[in-house]
């Protein structure tokens, strides 16, 4: 891993500012009780990133434990099927625990340990971040509790069982729709109560500053490795880079190194796929960037699905990991500046793309990642048959077998 974790002055793209704002988005909108803990966290993160021993240990674990670097696999039958020149898949699905989430969980649990906290908590939607955090906690000998909505407990039961096997407590959250947003609120409330002995491992580029920056810091290994491998493979031109967007961590982990190292003129198109659920024209979707308006939730300001009175709305997606009414603040800013383009993908299109990758390449993707895959046919039409694309397969689909079967895929 290179020295990519903190931005430096000569970056092509530099964000956030000292108060954690990405343009107008981000910031710290939390009860006073946790303000000192956030300041402490910022300091601990910066000191850890400057500590060669910490970085070496993280690099070692990412290599030997997580299994990095992730291959950049040329999916030839997939490219042919959708009519593109080449599609390179970054295989985060091959990581230990099956998704990109472990990159961040491991980093944050190491931070918790460094700060002398014996207990970590996490929120989870699909259960991938919960499993990753329970795994890192087992590895580092930390106590772990994972907050999970009752609806997600139902649709991701395999991951619930895994977390318990790993020694974590799974705390069911029966508020609202019983999904990721409710789990996040419950975890934040719990943190306010136990802030003195508990570290909150946030699972995406959301939450109050410095969390979005920290999660990006631990996830940008995805894009850094991709850039290195493109060079090694002598691929000097890429037309577009695609990732799915829930809170936005795998997407920013992929996009940030491209933004940081490449000047605007020489960057590929960066495209995020968010959840259109049953369609953005219905009220059943999670397309915060496409349909939301700026607002505050879970400690940060960004695009948000909300009603006229400013109440956050329930999101919907077949994918528990994208079923969130907000989106990370950096994505809000990247949307406004046009540096990244965002498109919404329906449940149905995601399912179709899920089957396509499975049948053409023998790779069963997570239903979240399938939202990114669903953009391939659209991009073939837009960019032509010679276009070269990179797509982040953020996770594997083992956890989604029941959902896909329930959706009637044979």
């Amino acid at each position, binding site marked *: 891993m290179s020295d990519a974790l903190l931005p430096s002055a000569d970056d092509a793209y530099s964000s956030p500012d000292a108060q954690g*704002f990405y343009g107008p988005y981000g*910031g710290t909108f939390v009860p*006073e009780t946790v303000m000192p803990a956030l300041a402490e966290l910022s300091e601990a993160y910066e000191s850890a990133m400057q500590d060669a021993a910490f970085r070496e240990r993280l690099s070692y674990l990412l290599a030997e434990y997580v299994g990095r670097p992730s291959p950049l696999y040329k999916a030839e039958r997939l490219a042919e099927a959708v009519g593109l020149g080449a599609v390179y898949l970054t295989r985060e699905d091959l990581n230990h625990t099956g998704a990109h989430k472990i990159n961040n969980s491991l980093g944050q649990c190491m931070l918790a340990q460094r700060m002398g906290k014996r207990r970590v908590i996490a929120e989870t939607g699909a259960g991938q971040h919960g499993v990753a955090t329970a795994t890192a906690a087992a590895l580092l000998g930390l106590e772990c509790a994972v907050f999970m909505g009752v609806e997600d407990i139902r649709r991701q039961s395999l991951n619930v069982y895994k977390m318990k096997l790993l020694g974590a407590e799974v705390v069911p959250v029966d508020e609202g729709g019983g999904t990721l947003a409710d789990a996040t609120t419950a975890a934040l409330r719990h943190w*306010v109560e136990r*802030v*003195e002995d508990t570290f909150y491992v946030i699972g995406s580029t959301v939450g109050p500053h410095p969390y979005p920056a920290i999660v990006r810091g631990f996830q940008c290994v995805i894009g850094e490795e991709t850039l290195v491998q493109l060079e090694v493979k002598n691929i000097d031109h890429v037309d577009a880079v695609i990732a799915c967007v829930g809170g936005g961590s795998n997407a920013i982990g992929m996009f940030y190194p491209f933004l940081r190292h490449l000047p605007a003129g020489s960057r590929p198109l960066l495209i995020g796929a968010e959840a259109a659920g049953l369609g953005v024209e219905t009220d059943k979707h999670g397309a915060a960037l496409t349909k939301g308006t700026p607002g505050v939730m879970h400690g940060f300001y960004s695009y948000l699905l*909300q009603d006229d009175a*400013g*109440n956050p709305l329930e999101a919907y997606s077949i994918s528990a990991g994208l079923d969130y009414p907000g989106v990370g603040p950096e994505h809000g800013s990247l949307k406004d500046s046009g540096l990244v383009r965002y498109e919404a993908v329906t449940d149905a299109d995601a399912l179709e793309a899920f089957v396509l990758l499975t049948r053409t390449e023998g790779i069963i993707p997570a239903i979240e990642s399938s939202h990114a895959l669903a953009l391939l046919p659209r991009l073939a039409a837009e960019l032509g048959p010679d276009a070269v694309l990179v797509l982040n397969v953020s996770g594997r689909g083992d956890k989604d077998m029941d959902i896909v079967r329930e959706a009637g895929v044979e």
Partner: protein
Amino acid sequence: MSSAPSRLEAAFLKGHPALVAYLMGGYPDRAGSLAALVAVACAGADVIELGVPYADPLADGPVIQHAAEAARACEGSFGLAETLDLAGEAAALPGMPPLVVMTYLNPMMRMGLAKVGQKAAEAGVAGFIVPDMPPDNPMAVQWKREAVARGIDTVFLAAPTSTPERLAVVGEASTGFVYVVSSLGVTGERTQLPAELTDLVARVRASSPLPVAVGFGVSTPAQAATVSAIADGVIVGSALVRRQDDPSALGEFVGQLVSAVHTGGR
């Protein structure tokens, strides 16, 4: 600060500690919450905090959370606009103490800070408490410009975890009074108040000349009496909201709290 105390600050300078009573706007319905306001005012509360029902109340425990849900479910979603309207009607009644609106930030941002300030001033609201808006936040700076121009106070919160630097920021930014959060966690009734509370109140006093009121967890007249011996005000929320659908029981309970608090634990 050398200027005359605001209406809100003056409520703490009556020669005895003040009872600050929290009620949820629109709960059990609009008429019920107005009846509760009247009952609490008649029982002698010195300040009334009026909560805005919100879908994601990060700082509130189950009692307030469920009242907010009920209020949002009735009469086509009760929110900030409806709460300000209710406050306006209540503030016009004789004998109504200063009203402070307690709301999360997003409903304010959705309405627009300038419009919130304007509507609140028209309604005669004395102050705002916004638990997810720390004082050194750019939105807080913007809101304070709107509020100060209209003579509306903004109360910030001090917590058990606050460092001396944070207390200085909170003390500096607050007007009206400083809200001391007695314990970690969310609002709700607690059987015991933390032993470190006396020390926390003393630290807050050292950081600000404003009156200091303590809330979160105070739920019985005995606890209120204990707290009133160390603070200028005692804030009681969940224990009142629990009785909010029964104005006569509510009034009677507030009467007990008022006697406990006004004698200042003596």
